[in-house]
Structure formats: structure tokens, C-alpha cells
């Protein structure tokens, strides 16, 4: 048999396996394909530039897993965790495991749904591959980070924490919002906005940070997952272009979704911003620099001029994201530091060289706005204390982040927006989050708000220890890093190593 070209193989192994229903009508077979108002006239026009077929999919995925497990073994066998830059580095990975890994599992489930409900054979196959990818990501992330669970706090019970802990409701509610939308909106939300527009800001900093801080296993699973991610990015961009090309009436619907999901996704990346600037002992690049490179340069100057051909504009509220790039990470990390007694990772005051790095990377804002906060926290520590915020914060009804963001142009004035719906008042951190609520108030009034739930008595009890027990947090998981269980162990292990070398 002559060897088929990639195009022919793709056609034979995906499109040719599709069939026309004979004994049920299409409406009945694909009941979710039309209610969102997206009109598709010809599903065969869907392009998959990867031309991925099932045989090459399994071949390369198996190879990716083999490479990863070889690294996990050798890292564990060589006591690799002792060569990390510092135990505090792992705070970034605790946040990743608690906040991101459960989203991979959610994505696995929902792409399986798309693999059933999209009408075309091409996109259904792409969705099935992505569903399997996402399951692989969830499993390899859990497996990789389980190696640290033997030695460090904060890695146990991540799944329970994801469902309950206040800051984790930010990524969780984001994904709940996406999976409770229709199939086309989900593609715009996750495949396009989350995975194409913002994927580099979400994942590449974690992986480069892992590389720079001696975390070989995380770097390897990260790159292994990212190689799938480029296929997912392609699905995101293809699905947008496909909708725009199929019917002019789709353009305003897609624009609205891009406006909504850019802002929803961007607010989730606030946690990444603070990770990049504050949680890495050895920092790769600042949030600001990453935002300029991966978002302003690649998306605003590259992608959106391309999409303007279809009549698509840059996302509404994008200017506020650009204006916030000097402020975002500082506002978020200060919040995590202030409420750190209720977190699944530890926080601390940046050391002197770290403060200098922050000044150098944020010359317009750090010294006048944020350094004084850290100096105050330091004076409290010198007096034998630790600054923690007393009380519970008000949350934004849409993104669920505490109301910590400031008015555009006034970096010392907290922004507060509100809307009234059915006689009740709802608060928002920004114009973007208010706009999103006002489009679909009946959806967002149902949000599970962690602070409200505590006050309603649904979180273990009225006191802080009761709530922390309900979160599943144990001694050493949160609070201050200096003097923590992880730090004491780290020092002990390294002193033991040094004295062993000295005694030889």
C-alpha cells in the first residue's frame, strides 16, 4: 500500500470516520449546537493545522510521558529536592497544585463533553485529544508534585483546598463559569482567551521559574504539558476564526465573549503576577516584562491586527490591564501576605536584594507606593510581631478577588463599583467585572462567595481555627515562612549535609 500524505491520513482517520445520522435527526443528536446563536453553515470547513491522527497522537504522547518519568525517578533517587534554590520556592508550586491542577481535570471533563457535542468530525477529534491531554496534565502534575509532599507542607489535600479555600475560589469560579456556558462560549473562554491569549503568562513563567530554581521535575512536566498546549492554542485560534468565517452574525457574539473572557482570564493571572514577582527566590522576569512581551507585543500588536480583518476589536477594558501592570503583583502579594494565616502556602517580607530587584523592575511605583508597606511590616517583625489583617475582606462578586485594586490613575484609592439586582447590592473590583455581571446577573448572583459562606456558618464555624480546620489546613501549611516547619527542616537538612562533608 502506498504511504499516504499527512493530509490524506488526516482525512481518512478523522473526517472519514464521521457519519450522517440516519434514524435520529441532527437536532436530537446535537442538542446544544444552536442555542447560543452561533450559526455554522459548513462544518467541513474546520481546519486542523496539526493534522493530528490517533496513531501519531499516541506515539508522541507516550514518548513525552517516558521522558517525564525518567526525570522524576532520577530526581527522587538523587535527593534532588535539596538542590532547590530555597524551600520557599515551593510556595509557587503549592499555589500551582491547589489552583491550577484541578482546572486541568475540569478541562479534561469538559473537552470530553465537546468531543460529544460539537457537530463536526474535525473539531470533535481535536476536543477528544485535548480531553486526554488534560487528564494527562492533571495526573502528571499530581504525580510530579507528590514527590515534594513527602518532605514539605502544603501539598496534601490540594483538591479539598481547591473547593474550599478563599483565594482558590478565584480560579475555581472562573472555570465553573466557563463549563456552565454553551460549547461555543467555552471554546472562546478556555481555548481562545485562556489558552491562546494568556497561556504564556499563565504557564511559561512557572516553567522558567522552575528551571531557574532547580526544580527539574516541574520544569519537565511543564514543558511536556506545554507541547500539548501549543496544539490547544491552535484549537483556540481555529475555533475563533471558524466562527467568524462561518457567518457575519457570529461576529458581535464572539466579540462579546472575547470582551468577557479576556477580563475573566486576566483577573485569574493576578495570582501568577504575584508568584512571579514575589514567590520565586530567583526571579526570571518581572510580571511587567512578561506582560509587555507576551501580551502587549504578541497579542495586541500581533494577533488583534490580524483579527481586525473579521471586524474583531481588542478586548474591552484591555487598557486597564495595561495601566495596571506596574501595580498588580504588589497589590496581590500584599493581600496574600496579610491574609497568609489562612493560606495553603507561606509568605514573608522580601529580603533586601529582592526589594532592590523590585525597585529596579518597577521604578515608577515600587519605592513610593509599596516599599513603605514592607518597611512597616519589617518594623512590626523587629518588635516581635507579624502583620496579619484582622477581619474578612469584601470580595468582588465576579472575580472573587478581595476588593484590593485601585482606581485607574489613582493608585492609592481602592476602586469600588456596584450594581443593584432584585433589590440587592453587589460589589465589584473594576469596571470589567461590573460589566460582566451586568450582562448576566442571574448567573453571578449564584456565586459561592467564600467570605459570605463563612458568615452564613457554612465553613466549619465562626472562629478562624474552625474555618482553617474545615479548609483542611494543618500546622505549617500557611502563615509566615521565617521560622516555619519547612524553613526549619530546610536548614536542618543543609546543616546535616555540611557537617557530613566537614567530617570526611
Amino acid at each position: 500500500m502506498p504511504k499516504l500524505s499527512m493530509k490524506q491520513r488526516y482525512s481518512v482517520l478523522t473526517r472519514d470516520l464521521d457519519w450522517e445520522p440516519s434514524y435520529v435527526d441532527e437536532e436530537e443528536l446535537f442538542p446544544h449546537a444552536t442555542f447560543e446563536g452561533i450559526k455554522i453553515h459548513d462544518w467541513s470547513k474546520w481546519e486542523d493545522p496539526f493534522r493530528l491522527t490517533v496513531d501519531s497522537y499516541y506515539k508522541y504522547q507516550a514518548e513525552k510521558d517516558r521522558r517525564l518519568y525518567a526525570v522524576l525517578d532520577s530526581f527522587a533517587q538523587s535527593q534532588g529536592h535539596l538542590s532547590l534554590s530555597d524551600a520557599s520556592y515551593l510556595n509557587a508550586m503549592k499555589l500551582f497544585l491547589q489552583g491550577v491542577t484541578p482546572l486541568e481535570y475540569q478541562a479534561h471533563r469538559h473537552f470530553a463533553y465537546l468531543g460529544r457535542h460539537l457537530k463536526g468530525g474535525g473539531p470533535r477529534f481535536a476536543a477528544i485529544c485535548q480531553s486526554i491531554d488534560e487528564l494527562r496534565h492533571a495526573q502528571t502534575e499530581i504525580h510530579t508534585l507528590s514527590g515534594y509532599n513527602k518532605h514539605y507542607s502544603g501539598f496534601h489535600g490540594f483538591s479539598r483546598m481547591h473547593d474550599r479555600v478563599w483565594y482558590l475560589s478565584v480560579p475555581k469560579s472562573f472555570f465553573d463559569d466557563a463549563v456552565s456556558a454553551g460549547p461555543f462560549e467555552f471554546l472562546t473562554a478556555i481555548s481562545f482567551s485562556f489558552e491562546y491569549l494568556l497561556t504564556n503568562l499563565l504557564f511559561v513563567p512557572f516553567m522558567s521559574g522552575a528551571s531557574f530554581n532547580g526544580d527539574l521535575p516541574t520544569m519537565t512536566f511543564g514543558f511536556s504539558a506545554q507541547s500539548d498546549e501549543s496544539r490547544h492554542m491552535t484549537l483556540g485560534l481555529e475555533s475563533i476564526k471558524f466562527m467568524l468565517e462561518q457567518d457575519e452574525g457570529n461576529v458581535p457574539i464572539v466579540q462579546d465573549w472575547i470582551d468577557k473572557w479576556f477580563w475573566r482570564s486576566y483577573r485569574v493571572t493576578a495570582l501568577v503576577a504575584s508568584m512571579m514577582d514575589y514567590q520565586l527566590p530567583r526571579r526570571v522576569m518581572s510580571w511587567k516584562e512578561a506582560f509587555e512581551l507576551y501580551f502587549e507585543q504578541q497579542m495586541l500588536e500581533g494577533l488583534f491586527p490580524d483579527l481586525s480583518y473579521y471586524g474583531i476589536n481588542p478586548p474591552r477594558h484591555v487598557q486597564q490591564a495595561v495601566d495596571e501592570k506596574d501595580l498588580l503583583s504588589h497589590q496581590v502579594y500584599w493581600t496574600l501576605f496579610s491574609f497568609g494565616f489562612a493560606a495553603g502556602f507561606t509568605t514573608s517580607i522580601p529580603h533586601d536584594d529582592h526589594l532592590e530587584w523590585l525597585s529596579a523592575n518597577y521604578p515608577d511605583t515600587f519605592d513610593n507606593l509599596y516599599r513603605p508597606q514592607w518597611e512597616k511590616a519589617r518594623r512590626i517583625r523587629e518588635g516581635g510581631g507579624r502583620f496579619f489583617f484582622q477581619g474578612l475582606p469584601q470580595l468582588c462578586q465576579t472575580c472573587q478577588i478581595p476588593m484590593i485594586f485601585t482606581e485607574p490613575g489613582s493608585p492609592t484609592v481602592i476602586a469600588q463599583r456596584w450594581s443593584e439586582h432584585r433589590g440587592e447590592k453587589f460589589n465589584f473590583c473594576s469596571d470589567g467585572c461590573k460589566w460582566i455581571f451586568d450582562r448576566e446577573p442571574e448567573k453571578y448572583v449564584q456565586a459561592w462567595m467564600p467570605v459570605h459562606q463563612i458568615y452564613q456558618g457554612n465553613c466549619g464555624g465562626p472562629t478562624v481555627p474552625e474555618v482553617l480546620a474545615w479548609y483542611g489546613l494543618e500546622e505549617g501549611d500557611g502563615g509566615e515562612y521565617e521560622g516555619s516547619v519547612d524553613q526549619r527542616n530546610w536548614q536542618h537538612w543543609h546543616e546535616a549535609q555540611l557537617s557530613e562533608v566537614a567530617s570526611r
Partner: protein
Amino acid sequence: MTAAADPVTQPPDNPSNNNVGVELQDSEESRKVIEAIVADNPAATLSHRPGLVRVSVPGRLVVRRETVEGLLGRPWETHEFQMCIVTYYGHIGEWDEDEIVIAWDHSS
């Protein structure tokens, strides 16, 4: 701890506003793929970050199987590019047995 290269001071991409590019793992195998990309895209600029190499080209980036095979000294199918790619920007316009092309569709 050993001193590592300063990841911050890297050359910027070309000052063109229709760049496309890829980021590849900094590994033995992708080194040859990167060499091939540079050979086939003379305007390419490279920058390094921990674990990563970023290749950026104005307008259009092509990866040719023949060039990669010549440098690797073994057969290489374009699907194998998946083993070293971390991320890209632009639009994948073509991916067949001979080449992979990344370009924006509608920008000038």
C-alpha cells in the same frame, strides 16, 4: 548554587510589529531544530531564558524537514516538532510532511 546566566538582559525581538515566533526547549535535540530554523529564516533573532530558547521572525517562520534532517543526520518527521515546542505566537498556516509555516493570516 552555581551562578547562572542573567536571564533578564536578552536582546529584544526585531522591532517589527508583525513578528511571529516559537519558544523551544533548550535541549540537545532542539538545538539542531533551532539551527535549521536560523538557516531557513535569515531574519530570525534568538533569545534565551532558563530552559527555553525563543526564536522570533518578522512575518513568516518556516521549519523545513530536509534542513532539520541534514543537521540531525537522521530521518525526522514534522510531527516530531511537538517534542520540542513549548509555545508559539502567530497562526500555524501549514503543517505537512515537508514543512511547518507560522504566519499571521491577514496582517500586512
